[in-house]
């Protein structure tokens, strides 16, 4: 998973729950309701897109004799086959 597409999924879910609660308020004006709904839909779209595309790396960790940590793609798996940003 690259840092660029990082999305805090849990935060998104929490925000959606908050929006849903706000939409439930009886004193909510229509404009406000529409704005909340639009924001919620945008969050949903982001989260769905992230779920569709996010892809992690599978790497093997190699501790060198000098104590440094190196990584290399794990042989015999297709871990980086769907990884758009490995390297």
């Amino acid at each position, binding site marked *: *998973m690259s840092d660029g597409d990082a999305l805090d*999924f*849990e935060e998104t*879910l929490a925000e*959606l*729950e908050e*929006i*849903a609660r706000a*939409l*439930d308020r*009886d004193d*909510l004006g*229509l404009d406000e*309701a*529409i704005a*909340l*709904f*639009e924001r*919620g*839909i945008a969050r*949903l779209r982001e*989260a*769905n897109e*992230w*779920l569709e595309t*996010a*892809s*992690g*790396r*599978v*790497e*093997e*960790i190699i*501790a060198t004799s000098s104590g440094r*940590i190196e*990584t290399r793609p*794990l*042989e015999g*798996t297709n*871990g980086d086959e*769907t990884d758009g940003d490995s390297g």
Partner: protein
Amino acid sequence: MTDGQMALFEPRKPDGRTPDTAISVRALNHGAKRLLEDHVPDLWVRGEVTKWRVSRPGHRYFTLRDDAASVDCVFFAGDAWRLPADPEDGMEVAVFGRPTLYEAQGRFQIVVRRLEATGDGLWRLAFERLHRKLAEEGLLDPARKRPLPSFPRRVAVVTSRSGAALHDVLSVLRRRSPWIDVLVCHCRVQGEGAALEIRRALQTAGGLSGVDAVILTRGGGATEDLWCFNEEVTVRAVAGCQVPVVCAIGHEVDVTLAELVADRRAQTPSVAAELIGPDAAALRDRLDGASLVLARGLRRSVARGRERLERYARDLPRSMRAALGRARGRLDGHGRDLPRGVRAALHRGRGRLRAVAGRLDALSPLATLARGYGVATDPEGRLLASVDRFEPGSRFHLRLRDGSVEATTDRTRKETP
């Protein structure tokens, strides 16, 4: 000298038949050893252990005895490391080895290659000794266990790179949580020195930046193969890991101390991966649920708005007419242009209502039907959002993207969300 004189003084070959041909002690012992080894195969011998002694390099010396006889035994370190624990004095064991002669001292002995106590005796003994020690230190205390991360991004797997366990873990994580970065820390998971490799791999894994949890695992195997997960070195490394550890060793029936000390035990490697990786399908369901909740919320807001508008539209003409009547009375025939002005104002007001309603429709949840959702309503047009609202035999409408379906409920099944 004649040939006959030569023969007289030549030393005769030692054959042990006369004092002159006596053989050496070395030759005797060597011969006896050859004889023994050529004629007696390696075999299992049962008896009771006494005088157990461990030398500095790790060799074990002991005596095996029964009520009538005893025999010395030597168990060299190269084989004895497999012992889970040194047996207790008087313990009934079977040893496998070669009956032979220690030439230097002419001592009959067994060179032991394996030693097994009755049943799982030694394994149990070692397990119980360490279990007791860990319990006394509080390392088995449930309060020590840390919760697993609910949404991990990076997970380290400590296992053999060539094992089936790794394959299982990777395929479950790819399927359930494809976004997770998996870092594999290879170590041997059986044999001499495996415990030290496991410790090193656990230390590396726990110290990697951003790692949320560690899976320590290996597939099934004989008690002996799984033993390194009962060794103190391994168990303490699990307890000391900086991030939560899920441990799955062997089959469900095998319980190792590493698993008991870990923050979570899993029955199999696949289950360990399931405990770590949230299911993307379930997350999608949650998002779909959230979209329905949003839609319902907006629909309610719209309904409330419509109600207000309708009330307004109903009340307005009446109050306008009343005002008009009053105005007419006041103007007394002079205000003929006024009604036209009021009608125009009303017309403008209606136009604005229509514009707002159009915008509502565009944003209403019905627009999201285009994504493939269906909305069920009762014949009165009320939303049916729960199976509780469906009576078997009752009729309902299912509104879809391009029309609606008239349907009848056959049966319902409630699922706990």
